[in-house]
């Protein structure tokens, strides 16, 4: 517990409180009056209201659409399942500008809906909500599906023989067992959408704005730190309220469950009902995720002289142009992977330790720490980034210009994922299994390694996948810190998009496609990693 606490104290609590403190303190005295002042501004209240309700709506919609997906991925075997599971995670790494493009192509003028029914959703809230579902589908599918695949199906069978229909059995037996995982996924989706930035701007138009945008504007553009500090506190309050609700609802539901080997629980769908469900989920994934991604891929091949690899070739030659603008794409891939790898390792170590500590201990302090771990998802990257600047400026921690800040900032976002995906599973592990290991001679540490670890293996992989994807796609912090000579893929994409000219745009699409590919392949490889299954003799 010491490691995660130290990590969070140094790389989160201290920087963020420093920057907030700087905003709220003038000449050494706290100016709490600012809070009331900002909070009574009607435009800020509008933003707060919109931010909150769109986040709630997005979360609800995401759960609605993704829970059947989680079921299908947990319980059914079908060809291409692993690939599809990796692909639905791809949106996670994409820069929002690029995603905006894809969604506008589908929902906007001349888009699919426009052509078919003359419906345009751009600048409506629907576009925002759908894009949020697009981004966060995988969060639900993976965190919930991870636990689901390990639930003993006989529990549901017990309900069925007592007269419960399929849905009733699910609602009354499986859902309560899944509760903590669903809550964890919902919490993460809420935090992402609550702090949504690019999606709202691009798809909602300038009329829609979130708190996050305001914080960014006040900090990065206007350097109005007092206002930014108040807004950050408001975000804190909102996030804190949600965390409190989460803590209360989850605490009542956490129970030891009989976890089984996931390989035993999935089978080919049987009967028309199950096939229909599978078909429905695949169709949803196709329409909602593959289609937007497809638009990007299509554009990356759609050169001036018809389809071809022109933009990809152009990417290659850009390396030789002798400018600081572009590096060869392979190098950007390498940079991205390196940063993401380090960030993932940090996130896994810090988050894993935190999750292990949180499983065994209870009490107010621990619960508070649990909540603190989630806060990075609810705090603007600018706040953290600027906080770093004013705090990590003294040796031995003068990291302001060090590359390590990039993976550190990314890990800050990865840790909540690790904790939230691992905790529901860890807390479901029956204490008696650990006891069984202990009476067979395993020390507590060994028991953790031999019992908990294999059972949370899936969750760890899911968490690692997310930490990796988050780091791969992170832009807000990376763009502040990344050295110009080693940009990551999203930074390179953003640079290209910042210029006019057909080749620049095409290359941006090509690079985005490469980013998607890198993400999907990495996740697939990650899933192949198997910690010992049958156990060494």
């Amino acid at each position, binding site marked *: 517990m010491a490691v995660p606490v130290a990590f969070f104290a140094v790389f989160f609590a201290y920087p963020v409180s420093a920057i907030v403190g700087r905003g709220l303190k003038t000449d050494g005295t706290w100016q709490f009056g600012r809070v009331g002042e900002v909070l009574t501004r009607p435009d800020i209240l509008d933003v707060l209201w919109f931010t909150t309700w769109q986040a709630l709506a997005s979360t609800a919609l995401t759960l609605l659409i993704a829970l059947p997906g989680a079921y299908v991925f947990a319980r059914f075997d079908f060809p291409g399942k692993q690939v599809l599971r990796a692909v639905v995670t791809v949106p996670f790494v994409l820069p929002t*500008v690029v995603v*905006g*493009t894809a969604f*506008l*192509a589908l929902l*906007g*003028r*001349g888009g699919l809906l426009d052509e078919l029914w003359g419906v345009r959703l751009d600048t409506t809230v629907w576009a925002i909500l759908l894009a949020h579902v697009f981004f966060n589908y995988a969060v639900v599918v993976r965190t919930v599906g991870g636990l689901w695949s390990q639930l003993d199906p006989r529990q549901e069978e017990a309900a069925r023989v007592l007269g419960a229909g399929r849905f009733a059995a699910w609602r009354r037996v499986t859902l309560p067992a899944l509760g903590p995982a669903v809550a964890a996924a919902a919490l993460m989706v809420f935090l992402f959408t609550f702090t949504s930035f690019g999606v709202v*701007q*691009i798809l909602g*138009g*300038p*009329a829609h704005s979130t708190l996050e*945008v305001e914080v*960014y*504007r006040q*900090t*990065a*553009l*206007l*350097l109005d730190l007092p206002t930014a500090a108040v807004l950050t506190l408001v975000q804190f309050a909102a996030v804190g309220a949600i965390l409190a609700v989460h803590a209360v609802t989850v605490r009542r539901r956490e129970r030891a469950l009989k976890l089984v080997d996931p390989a035993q629980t999935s089978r080919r769908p049987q009967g028309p009902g199950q096939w229909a469900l599978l078909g429905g989920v695949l169709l949803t994934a196709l329409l909602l995720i593959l289609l937007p991604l497809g638009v990007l891929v299509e*554009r990356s091949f759609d050169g*001036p002289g018809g389809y071809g690899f*022109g933009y990809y070739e*152009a990417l290659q030659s850009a390396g030789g142009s*002798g*400018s*600081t*603008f572009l590096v060869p794409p392979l190098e950007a891939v390498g*940079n991205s992977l*390196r*940063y993401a790898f380090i960030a993932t390792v940090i996130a896994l170590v810090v988050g894993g330790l935190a999750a292990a500590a949180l499983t065994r201990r209870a009490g107010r302090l621990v619960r508070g720490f649990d909540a603190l771990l989630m806060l990075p998802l609810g705090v603007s990257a*600018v706040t953290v980034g*600027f906080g770093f*600047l*004013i705090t990590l400026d003294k040796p031995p921690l*003068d990291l*302001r*210009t*060090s*590359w*390590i800040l*990039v993976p550190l900032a990314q890990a800050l976002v990865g840790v909540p994922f690790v904790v939230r995906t691992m905790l529901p599973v860890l807390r479901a592990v029956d204490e008696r299994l650990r006891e069984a290991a202990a009476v067979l001679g395993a020390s507590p540490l060994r028991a953790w390694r031999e019992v908990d670890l294999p059972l949370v293996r899936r969750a760890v992989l899911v968490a690692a996948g997310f930490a990796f994807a988050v780091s791969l796609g992170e832009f807000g912090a990376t*763009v*502040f*810190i*990344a*050295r*110009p*000579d080693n940009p990551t893929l999203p930074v390179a994409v*953003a640079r290209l998009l*910042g*210029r*006019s*000219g*057909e*080749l*620049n*745009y*095409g290359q941006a699409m090509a690079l985005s496609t490469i980013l998607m590919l890198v993400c999907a392949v990495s996740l697939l490889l990650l899933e192949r990693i198997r910690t010992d299954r049958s156990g060494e003799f």
Partner: protein
Amino acid sequence: GCGGSDGTSAGSGASKGSGSKTVTLVTHDSFNASEKVLKQFTKESGYTVELLKSGDAGSALNQEILTKGSPRGDVFFGVDNTLLSRALDNDLFTAYEAKGLDRVADGTEQDDKHRVTPVDTGDICVNYDKKYFADKKLDPPQTFEDLIKPEYKNLLVTENAASSSPGLGFLLGTIAAQGEDGYQDYWKKLKANGVKVVDGWEQAYHEEFSGSAAGKKAKADRPLVVSYASSPPVEVLYADPQPKEAPTGVSTGTCFRQTEYAGLLNGAKNEAGGKALLDFLISRTFQEDVPLNMFVNPVVKDAKLPEIFTEFGETVDKPATVAPEKIAANREQWVQAWHSIAVK
């Protein structure tokens, strides 16, 4: 090391004492220079340039302000006239009169104490889709006044002045042209004439503007967009094969001029190197490298423009300008007023 794979970036600029052979240039994301030119500087002065890019222009400057007194580098480049006052008020820079400062264009020097040195100028202007206007047999608009004429109804797309730099530039342009009293009225008319506001330049240019390659794919339907005067030559430069004529043009009467400055940071570890770098930034070698890397104009009179600029670009004779102090004082209020007219 992981990130700093090559030797030049192995350490941090701030840790280097004076007499170091590295000079750190803190700048924004859009900064670019040819490797060749940077090597040239090393050859001439003996200093190696280390680049530190930190976000867009606004946040790069604000980061410098936050770390004032203990800067991460020696020279900062990238503060423009809309932000200049903030930099100067915060006492960010040490005065230094760069060698060759006499060659810079008139009116670009804004600080008589030489705390900042102008490096480039660029114009934010309305661009138009040539093909659209040719097909419609319509003259493209040339001035701010033209934009509110009924024949240009529903044709213009611009960016959010609250968060986008060209969006703000265009707003400032209208303020310069219409006056502080008139611009609100002008925007009401513009709004009535169907101006569309989107959030960022990328979206406006790639998604809404029918003149761009991406816009064509997206079936964009706005032939007028707020962009840069350099956008047409860039369209030519980054097209394959190169067209004989730029697909887009510039409405030269709708331009707002931005000048970007560099300055020696207060508390720089390598002041000598910083001074050498400032000298270099307005040297002919660097200045002639500027257009093709950052797509803005050199600030010195003796720099030659590349052919692609002279051939496909248009010169802006009377750009609108607003004094930096005035921008600093009124910016938020102007943007708010604009927001309630143009967006809500």
